[in-house]
């Protein structure tokens, strides 16, 4: 019997919120989250000011989609499974307002669109349950070293293409513990 994505999501979310609240049986929760990321899934990338946003603060820069150093991985969260609140909780763990690194919202993307651009999305639950990576297939050089020109152009093209595929959903109240913004969907 094939279980639809929305049913899988409902089951996972119920288990996830129960196990998050009680702190037990988290391993079991992982069984409910499929390791294969399907084309229908929606993923989000947490956006921080100021370096992910243009000067007005409402538009994304392509820099928001630069891979982690020396890897081809761009961290995302599987928001088809994690709730918006859970995504925000995780995002806020990464912010540091004292260092002017504030959570501002999410870039929302559809997995099928990303694969259409010849990139991939994989589960990487070793970080935390619900974490994923966009894999670009292009790794950067070591710290402090510029990329070769053709590699630089390729990375810029990939970042621009992810920018074109994404929708920025601004958090109307970043200080609130819960997500109070609109639904995290790739379409307006």
């Amino acid at each position, binding site marked *: 019997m094939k279980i639809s994505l929305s049913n899988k999501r409902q089951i996972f979310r119920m288990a996830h919120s129960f196990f998050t609240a009680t702190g037990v049986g988290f391993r079991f929760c992982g069984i409910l989250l499929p390791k294969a990321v399907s084309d229908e899934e929606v993923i989000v990338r947490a956006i921080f000011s100021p370096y992910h946003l243009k000067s007005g603060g409402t538009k994304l820069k392509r820099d928001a989609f630069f891979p982690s150093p020396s890897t081809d991985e761009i961290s995302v969260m599987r928001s088809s499974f994690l709730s918006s609140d859970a995504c925000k909780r995780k995002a806020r763990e990464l912010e540091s307002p004292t260092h002017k690194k504030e959570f501002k919202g999410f870039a929302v993307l559809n997995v099928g669109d990303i694969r259409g651009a010849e990139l991939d999305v994989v589960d990487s639950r070793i970080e935390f349950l619900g974490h994923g990576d966009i894999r670009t297939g292009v790794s950067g050089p070591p710290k402090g070293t510029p990329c070769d*020109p053709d590699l630089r152009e390729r990375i810029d093209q990939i970042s621009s293409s992810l920018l074109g595929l994404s929708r920025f959903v601004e958090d109307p109240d970043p200080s609130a513990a819960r997500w109070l913004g609109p639904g995290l969907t790739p379409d*307006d």
Partner: protein
Amino acid sequence: MTVPGVLSLSGNDCLNVFNGYSQRLSDADSARGSVRGVAGPDDDPLWEWKKDHYRQLWAQFGFLDGSLKSFGETLVNIQAPTSLSAGSREETLQYIDELGHLEDGWDGYEGYSPSLSACGNARSVITCIAAEFPKLPSPEIGPTTNGTLTLAWKAPAGNACIEIGDSLYSAYIRVRDEFVPLKGECSELGERQLQLIWSRLYQ
């Protein structure tokens, strides 16, 4: 960071601009551009036609903080970069200094902070632009996750990027099918490379 100027176009100007850019627009990758949050008037018979042009204009200028605004008296509002005036040069240098104080993880993830030597190298390039290429538009400057800085230009003719590291630089100029790669020691980075960018993109 760009230092934008604003070009506001009225309805007729807009059509002229479309015609003026028609050759370039036909080459633009319109599929990559998308107009978000812009609704067309239901009773405008030319809306589909206009929307297509707006998309292409967006693809062409979106990188420049470009914004498509109201569809009333002002049809299109494009923000284009200006050259480095004395004031904006100071502002740009200050911004580079600010980047020199970033800490690892500045991007919210695992990004390395740019080193002071990378920032010093970027300052030299900006000083060279201001002194030798006053008409060259201000580049968009940003840190990368591997601790380097990029200076990027996008023009209707093409785009260019210089990536500056601790001691090495790399650069490319892309004009349609032509790709010009450059790399070397930061100490060699200056007039020659900027002249190439100026001539390929803006002359």
